């Protein structure tokens, strides 16, 4: 494909994907009282206001906790599963695959409602724990799929060679396989983090007294106060995420692997 054409394609795609983001940043800078583009004068007041809304602080902490630890838990379960599904000839492998993939296709509202009615209420587990379990289950399919995809393209005979050279299976995994699927694992982490962090429908029913995830809190805030502070908050969150991706890039050499 000629270079010019690819440049045009990329420019158009990026405009479509990033344009609304730019508009959100600018709308958050508005000096007026409503979400508008072009903004109604410039001011930082909405960006500053974000930090004064108390409930945002608690819900941000909860969402961050769920996204990081839910995803790590999902990887802890998902990487071994993906490895087993790719490297072992298991009877019923397809069943395992379908079970693990199930959360992705069940509408979130039903998940939230089901967990509230048949897990939280009868067993009395805390809402926070239910949220943690739900988010782990939701992220698990991404972890398994993305890591599987990486493993699929990594030839098994490299590990065989390592084993022949005296490694145990476990050593071979950590010395040969893991470094080669690092990008996949990282991609799975980022995908999982984002999925969890922005998840709305599941968390809708799984919010207890004083326990609410950030997006639910934003929706609730927006239902009442239609000012640009939600735009400002979104922009700040996006900047935070960009910082994470950049850090991943810098310390792990993300782009060399993706």
């Amino acid at each position, binding site marked *: 494909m000629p270079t010019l054409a690819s440049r045009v394609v990329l420019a158009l795609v990026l405009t479509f994907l990033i344009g609304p983001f730019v508009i959100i940043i600018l709308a958050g800078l508005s000096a007026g009282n409503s979400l508008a583009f072009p903004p109604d004068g410039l001011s930082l007041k909405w960006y500053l206001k974000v930090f004064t809304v108390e409930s945002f602080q608690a819900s941000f902490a909860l969402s961050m906790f769920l996204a990081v630890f839910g995803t790590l838990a999902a990887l802890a379960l998902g990487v071994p599963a993906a490895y087993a599904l790719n490297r072992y000839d298991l009877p019923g492998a397809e069943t395992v695959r379908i079970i693990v993939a199930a959360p992705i296709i069940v509408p979130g*509202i039903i998940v939230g409602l089901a967990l509230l009615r048949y897990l939280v209420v009868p067993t009395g587990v805390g809402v926070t724990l239910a949220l943690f379990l739900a988010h782990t289950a939701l992220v698990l399919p991404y972890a398994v799929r993305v890591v599987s995809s990486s493993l699929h393209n990594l030839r098994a005979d490299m590990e065989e060679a390592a084993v022949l050279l005296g490694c145990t299976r476990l050593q071979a995994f950590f010395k040969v396989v893991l470094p080669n699927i690092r990008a996949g694992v990282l991609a799975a982490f980022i995908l999982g983090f*984002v999925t969890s962090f922005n998840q709305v429908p599941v968390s809708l029913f799984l919010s207890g007294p004083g326990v609410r995830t950030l997006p639910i809190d934003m929706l609730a805030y927006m239902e009442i106060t239609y000012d640009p502070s939600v735009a400002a908050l979104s922009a700040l969150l996006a900047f935070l995420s960009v910082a994470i991706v950049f850090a991943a890039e810098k310390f792990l050499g993300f782009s060399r692997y993706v």
Partner: protein
Amino acid sequence: MFENRTTGFALALPAAIFTAALFMVPVGILLSEAFRADGQWSLSGYVEFFSEPLNRTVFWRTLKLGVLVAATSAVIGYGAAFAITNLDGRRRGQVFGLVVLPLMISPVARTYAWIVILGRTGIVNDAIVGLGLSETPVRLLFTETAVFLGLLQLFLPLMIISLVSAMENMPRDAIPAARVLGANWLQVFTRVILPLTREGLVMGGTLVFTGSLTAYITPAILGGSKVLMLETLLYQRVNVANDFVSASVIAMILIVMSFSANLLLKRIATARR
């Protein structure tokens, strides 16, 4: 393939048991309500659902938008993924970061951005009127077009990511080799790129299609009750009527649609082998 099945199971089963116990059981109980009527097993929930003309309209609209969004994102996704993989390392990381970026932004805020963009006084209408395509602003909000654009923007990055990682894993010389052997770009695409990236296409397609089916915020805000989709209809049933049977029926339909799409895509992908 390794022989030791015990190890294999020990690695695979924790994930499966976790999901089965904490996810499938509660959801399964809830879904079973969709097969019950008057204390007996019954399919009457489904018969009733499809006998409503509104529900049929919503069903077809959801399927149509899901397919359109998935197909459009595949077409755009291949172009973008190919362009990205051809960039040099540094640039590639930057562009990839920009593609991932929208995923970081709360769908709530991204959807609201479209209200500003597509509104009567928004930039799209300014352009339409400015270019003389229409004398008065066109009503774009609360139409299928708005929902389509919102969903496409929401899920296109997932397709691009899937395709990029698939293309990354293609042997580097496959395309030049095919070109040297005289294949044109169409042949390169159908005979080399497509077969070698089908995993990514299946994954991306499934993610985009199921994402579109189960998205709530985008159809709710950009479509409203004039452009209902199955997910917003489901929410309405729970929200307005506390009608968990209809909600379970719709959930079941969504699940069947997603499963079928997944199987169908896999079938198509393997058929090309």
